[in-house]
């Protein structure tokens, strides 16, 4: 059982390494970073407590929001999805990404206290 799981995972990783373009890998690295940041914040909250609750919320929401926006960017940039996003050029996607991030950061900094 575990043997097949390991096989699946290694196969997946191999596929990933070969078929994804560099651009997407860059974004994936960013996604991993955001994920870890959010996870560590959540871990702190679980272990130590929610003392400055607003700060925790704003940090966590920042991580979650950034993750989502980056995922959106990745989907829109991926040339394989070009058919779904005929009106959205990669540049447009990037511009949207930046704008959404501005709004997100405004809210986060407001709430961070």
């Amino acid at each position: 059982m575990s043997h097949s799981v390991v096989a699946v995972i290694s196969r997946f990783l191999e596929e990933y390494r070969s078929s994804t373009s560099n651009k997407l890998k860059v974004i994936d690295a960013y996604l991993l970073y955001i994920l870890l940041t959010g996870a560590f914040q959540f871990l702190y909250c679980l272990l130590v407590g929610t003392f400055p609750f607003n700060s925790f919320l704003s940090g966590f929401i920042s991580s979650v929001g950034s993750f989502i926006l980056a995922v959106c960017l990745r989907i829109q940039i991926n040339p394989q999805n070009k058919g779904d996003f005929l009106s959205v050029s990669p540049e447009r996607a990037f511009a949207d990404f930046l704008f959404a991030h501005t709004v997100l950061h405004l809210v986060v900094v407001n709430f961070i206290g």
Partner: protein
Amino acid sequence: MALLRSVSLLVFVLALGAQALTPSHYLAASDVDRLQAVLSQPFTDLKSAYFSIVGLSKLGVSVADSNDACSFIKANLDSSSIEALFYAAEASQALPSCEIHVSNETRDLLHAAVSEDSTVSQIHQAVSALSSLGLPLASQEVVSALKARISKEDNVVAITLALQTASRLSQQAELGEILEEIEDLAARLDDLGGVYLQFEEGLEATALFVSAAYALSDHVDVEPPLKEDQVIQLVNSVFSKKSWDSLSEAFSVASAAAALSNNRFHKPVVVSAVGPATVSHSQPLLQLQVTDVLCQPLSSADVLVESATSVTSKAAILSQTPFTLRDGIFELNFMASKPASGYYQFSVAVTGDTRLVANHVELKVKVSTKVAINNMDLSVVDKDQSIGTKTTRVEYPNKAKASFIADSHQNFAMTFQLVDDTTGVELTPHQTFVRLHNQKTGQEVVFVAEPDSKNLYKFELDTAERKTEFDSISGTYALYLMVGDATLENPVLWNVADVVLKFPDEEAPSTVQSKNLYVPKPEIQHLFREPEKRPPTVLSNTFTALVLSPFLLLLILWFKLGANISNFSFSPSSVLFHVGHAAMLGLMYVYWTHLNMFQTLKYLAIVGSLTFLAGNRMLAQKAVKRIAAEQSSRLAKYRSLR
């Protein structure tokens, strides 16, 4: 004394009889004096001289120095002014021997004023001046001029002046229509609570209306269309104010008072008791003051008690008993009828003049008496009644020589009788209390002594039963008897005896804590809100480092992937874009530390729009490059395929 009398008169509340209203406001002697004083002020001009002289004459008082007054009038007279002529003429008429000579021009001036073109006030002044100076005047012309003016000037003051003018005219003139104006004006009066009747223009207008209405009614000998209640309400309104703002107001009140006290039809009567309406053996006479509104006694009137009934027993004590007049006061010896102490309702009627208004008055009279305490017997009774009682009699105001000892097996008993000192009739006053006062601790306990069916008062103290009231504190208690009532002249506080009470066990604390409410209470220390417990700094720092560590990982990954900025074109738009973007991030930090949302939005709008424009340009350039690259690669592919 006069002040006390006026205060008691003012406080005097007359029951609203089923038939009629009685005056609740009137001038007491002190008020009349004050009115006179106001009117006796030295003259400043002709108008004030007029008010003072004529006002005082209405009160029946003459001016201090009439010769001086006369010369003052003559000196200040301006013969070309109708108003001045009016004041001078009226004032000189009121003075004993003061004649004003007028020239023919003046007379013509006054006659010319009587026309439809002058105001009612001018007509009034001209007609009064002519009348007071003894000059002839054409009454019918005046009447027609007045009628014409009344229809144009429909206000209260004008019509009142018209009434006043008409009272100076010949009786042969047709004054009927003007007489009807009294009724119309009376309809305009405002009824306030059924007590007052006055014009909204105020006290002066109401008072002047009263004097004008009665002047005209007397002149034509027709009763004014005012009901008795309305007359009393007018009395209340006019005399509700006891200090007057201006000389004209005082004058109007004096005129109204004179009119109400001396006219052919209505004479309001004021009946009030001299001092409190109380009789007793020392003061057996009920004294009443019966006056008109100017506080002048009605000596010719007959004052009669129609009925006097006791408030409690409703038994009639007196019926149709007259008062006797002595020195202007009506007296009745009520104690001669030997009334029991208490309150009596008197119904008094004043007769003798058909003009009298409000001449039935209800009065509440108190009969007070002195109380005597008889047969005060004190005893200590054993509960099981095996030992006979030893009764000690104490005479008021002595104290029992020996003190009484009562412990938990015994009762302390007290019986006595309260009687009227003079008649010997048994009394049941409102307050009969027995007070026990512990001299050492200052404690006191009060009980009520109740009368039985034979009006014998009994008080029993069951030591065991009552120990809670005494907090079970044994000791010597001084026993006082307190008797009081509104109808008693001599309330009693009598230290009858000392009682030593022994309670079974000392359950209470040995010292009585005096319930002193006014000592400072223990200070409350304010506890500020404790700041929340924070985790140790080490932990926080560790986790900060942990949370920031993925950034390092990111940089490493990007480096490994070969992400670079070699393609960075130093075009102005891209430089501006990156600078703007960096500025926006910097603004976020500054927002966190210094700014509020509004300021941030302001700066963000500026920086953001710049960044947007630059970024738009930059991305467009990139897009162009990308499309060109794609096209060239497609071309290359196409070429290689071929």
